[in-house]
Each structure stands twice: as C-alpha cells, then as structure tokens.
C-alpha cells in the first residue's frame, strides 16, 4: 500500500497558480523529497494533503484512506513551514495540548511526551515557555508535536530552515532512524544537499506541474561511468567496442599501478553491464567499474531549466 497517492490533484485560484494534475505515488517506509523553485506549488500540495486547502479537483489518499477522512490524521504528523505555536505555554504543556488534539489517551501522552522531548533534544527546556525558545528550538518543538502520535506518515515542510548545522544533523539522523522503523517521511526542503543525503525518491514541481518523480539516482546513475583497466588499451579500440558511450577522459590510474582510468558518458541511460561486456570482449582487463552519481542539485537545475510544464 502506498503512503500517499494523489490522482490529478489540482488546486487553482481563479483558474491560476497553485498546482495542477499532480499524480504522486509515495511508497511506505521511504523518505520522499519534494523539490521545486519558489512559488512552484510545493506548499500548496502539502497544505492540500494536510487538509488546510480544499482541492479544486482530483483525488488523494493518505495511508490508503481518502483525504476527507480526518481520522487518518491520527497517524499523520505535520510540521508546517510557518510554524507558530502558543508561545505562552511551556514546551511540555504545548506537547500535552497537541497530544490531546491527536486524541492520545492520557497514559500514552505521559509516555510519549518525555520520549519526544528527548528525540528533539528539548528535555532540559520542557518547563520553559515556548515564547522564550530560540527559532531553532521552536522548530524542534514543532517537530516534537508532529512526532507525538508515533506517526506512520510524517509531513515536514522545511524542517531544518531555522536549525544550525548540528541541529540539522540531529534531525537528519532522526529521520533516517524513523525510516528504519518503517515510517514514511514526506520532506519539502530547499536544501538539496540534505535531500540528496537521505531521500529515496524525489518529486520535482515546476509552475504547479509535476515534472519528475522517482529515484533521482536512476537518471543520474549510468550517465557517467568510471572504468579502471588493469593495463592499457588504445583509445580507438576502446571507442570501437563501446557503442553509445562517449569516452570523455582517459588517464593513468592513480590507484592501480600500470592501470588506465577511463570516464565514459552517455546522453541516454544505457546499461553499464553492456559497456563492461563490450570492453571484456575486446580484450580489456576490467579492474573496477564505478557509476558516477551526479549531485541532486545538478539534476534539479537541469530538470527545472529544461523541462516545460504541460499546459
């Protein structure tokens, strides 16, 4: 079963803006990143999924249940982008209030609140007023609120925007741990390096339209491959046996004495085993093959710059 499924989900304002025909499939137990330039419609999509905006058309399901079934939100945590909480409450009281909103029984609240405070590193500050918290601490208490029901699905809208590098690492590690527990995390962030580190799949939205969805490594992997040969081979023989691949650099290997390091590139996604087979059949002694993964940032810029959204 999918954690999130949307079918042509659309939200427009007087026929303009918002996002259009978004069909997403987010598998369970994954970290899914949502990318897009400012104003692309990412927050609109997240808000629709969290019931803050009414869709203009289309359907969506969370954990297999339709969006209008609000009881599903007992298993869904949400950290809004513009987080704001009752600043006159203490951190502990705020969590107790949100636990009550989630409908957690008193006994479970008593168990979860200290646990969540520890997860977000605010145990020492639990009795201080939220208004006295720094921006980063407020974001962490917001994350704590989202984690209260031990959610199966967690929506995080820019969860590290107010955090320092150490706080970001704490959150990153926490998300990886949650994924390990089978939770699904839907992450909306501008920090591509962060998404690159932890996301299994991404979706890219541009001008309200979905232009890419899937494992971003699929389209970056296989385009460039580093091959180290034991011994050397003339360039003309290499190019002759590797149809479809362009040899973009060749030099002596720095790690293998007498070896030759080759970098191949392809405009299309080609199968690396075919490249290796071609080399072996032409007599090359293949010592090492490393698909070169390009950065998510590069992919993002390429996709966002090149693609034209559908009308």
């Amino acid at each position, binding site marked *: 079963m999918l954690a999130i499924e949307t079918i042509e989900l659309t939200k427009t304002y007087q026929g303009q803006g918002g996002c259009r025909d978004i069909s997403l499939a987010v598998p369970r137990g994954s970290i899914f990143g949502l990318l897009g330039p400012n104003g692309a419609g990412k927050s609109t999509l997240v*808000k629709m999924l*969290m*019931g*803050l*905006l*009414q869709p203009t058309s289309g359907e969506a399901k969370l954990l297999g249940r339709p969006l209008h079934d*609000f*009881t*599903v*939100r*007992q298993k*869904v945590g*949400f950290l*809004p982008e*513009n*987080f*704001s*909480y*009752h600043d*006159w409450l203490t951190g502990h009281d705020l969590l107790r*209030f*949100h636990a*009550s*909103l*989630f*409908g957690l029984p008193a006994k479970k609240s008593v168990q979860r609140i200290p646990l969540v405070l520890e997860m977000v590193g605010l145990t020492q500050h639990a009795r201080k007023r939220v208004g006295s918290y720094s921006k980063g601490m407020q974001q962490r208490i*917001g994350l704590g*609120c989202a984690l209260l029901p031990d959610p199966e699905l967690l929506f995080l809208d820019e969860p590290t925007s107010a955090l320092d590098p150490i706080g970001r690492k704490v959150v990153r590690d926490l998300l990886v741990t949650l994924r390990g527990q089978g939770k699904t995390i839907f992450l909306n962030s501008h920090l591509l390096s962060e998404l690159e580190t932890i996301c299994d799949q991404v979706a890219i939205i541009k001008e309200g339209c979905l232009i890419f969805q899937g494992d971003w490594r699929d389209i970056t992997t296989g385009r460039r491959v580093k091959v180290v040969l034991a011994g050397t081979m003339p360039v003309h023989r290499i190019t002759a046996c590797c149809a479809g691949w362009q040899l973009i650099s060749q030099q002596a290997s720095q790690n293998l004495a007498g070896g030759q390091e080759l970098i191949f590139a392809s405009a299309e996604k080609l199968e690396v085993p075919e490249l290796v087979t071609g080399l072996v059949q032409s007599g090359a002694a293949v010592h090492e093959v490393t698909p070169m993964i390009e950065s998510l940032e590069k992919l993002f810029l390429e996709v966002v710059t090149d693609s034209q959204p559908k009308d």
Partner: protein
Amino acid sequence: MLTIARLTFWEGSRKKVFLVTLLLSTAFFLLYGAALNFTAQEMRGLGPGHGPQLMLQQMVGLQLLGAGLYFGSFLLALLALLASVGSVASEIESGLLHAIVSKPIRRRDIILGKFLGYGSMLTVYALVLYGGLLALNQYFNPVALGFLTTAKGIAGALIFALQPLILLGVALLCSTLLRTLTAGIVSIVLFGLGAVGGFLEQIGSIVNKADLVNLGIATSLVMPSDALFRKLLTVVTGSDMNPLSSLSVGPFGVSVPPSNAMLVYACLYLLVCLGLAIYHFERKDL
C-alpha cells in the same frame, strides 16, 4: 472540542484585555459604589419615601440601576469583542491554526471549542459583574430593586450573560470571514449600530414617532445586543409591575420593553452566527 475550549478559556483569561477589563471592572465598581453611596445619602436627606420624594427616589434609583447595568454590559461587550475577534483570523495569519487544523479534529469543533472557551469565560465574568451590580444596588439603592423576585433575578442573569455571547458569535463569524483588523472594525460598528438603534427606538417612543421606533426595531434585528439590554432592564426593574417605571425613560431606561420574542430571536441569531462561522471556516483555505 473540549481540548480547544479548555485552551481557549485558559488563553482568554491570560490575555491582557482580560486583565485590563478586570482592572476597569474594579474601578467601575468603586466609582459606581461611591456614586450610589452619595446618592443614597442625598435620598435619605429627602425624608420618608412617599409622594414626590418617592417619585424622585424611583426616578434616580432606576436611572442609577440602568446606568450600572449599561456600563456593565459595555464592559462585557468590550471583553467579548476584543478577546475573540482575532481568535480565528489572527491565528490563520500567524500560522497557528495550521498545526491545529491538520490534527484529527473537525473544523467545526475548533469553532465550537472557541465559542465554548470564550463563552464560559464571559459567562463567569458576566455573572460576577451582574451579582456585584445587584449587590451594590441592594445595599445603597434598594428602591430600584423593589420588584425584583428570585425568578426575575435569575432571568436577568441569563439575559445579562446572553449579551456577550451574541457579540462573541458575531466576532467569531467576522473572524472567519475577514482579517483581524477588519473583523474588529465590523464587529464594533455592528455593536455601535445596535446601541444607536436602541436610542432611536427610545427617542421615537418618547416623541411618538413610529418611523423612528421601526428604524430602531429594524436595527435591533441586525444587532440585538441593545434590545437585550432593554429586556434586561425590564426584567430587573419589574417595569411590567412597577407603576413608576415610566419614570425610568432615558438613555438608561426603557420606554418600549422588547417582547419575549426578541429573546427567542437573539438565541436564533446566535445560532445562525455560529452556523455561518462553521460553514465558512469549513470551506476556508488556510
């Protein structure tokens, strides 16, 4: 709903406007008590209450009671409007509601919870205010309460407490429809309109001008808060039984007592306001 109500009650009683209103109420009680005391001394100087003296005592006593209830109602209105008018709009603007609406609760429970929270706070405050006003009058100005029975006292308390609930309903509706500042302005203008309508009706009745009376009644239908105040005065002063009640005509008196139908209308008005607030909030994009 009860979670929201509890938090709203707690939050409302912590707001500065509540503290300011409490201070104003204390100052009001002190001033009002002093005024009643001085008047009582003057009245005692007039000698036994019969003949022209009785009429004067009734007239002054009823005006003082009316003035006390009027300013008490005004303080209630102030608290009801200022505390609640931003309760939805400002929380949408600040993003506070994003973390609440996304929880497994119905949107209507948020509105009803806020109404229950503010409503219970206002009711407690109204009952304290009402009890204090009657106690002061009973001590210094008993002549004005000569026709007040226990049943009428309870009915008066219910009407007194209903006044801020009407304004709370209006403020919540405006808060779901408009931005905080606009909602505040509209709510206060509507409250003012009700007061002006009430005065027009009184004046129309005194000068026997039907158009003015009708205009006042029409205004009461748009905002029944002032009509409720007139009904409250009728009940507390027992104007239906008091032969001297006509002496109380004036800004703090009643020349045309509103009927019981107005009470029913006010309750329906409140329900419609709440219903519309829920209807708009359930469809609102946050």
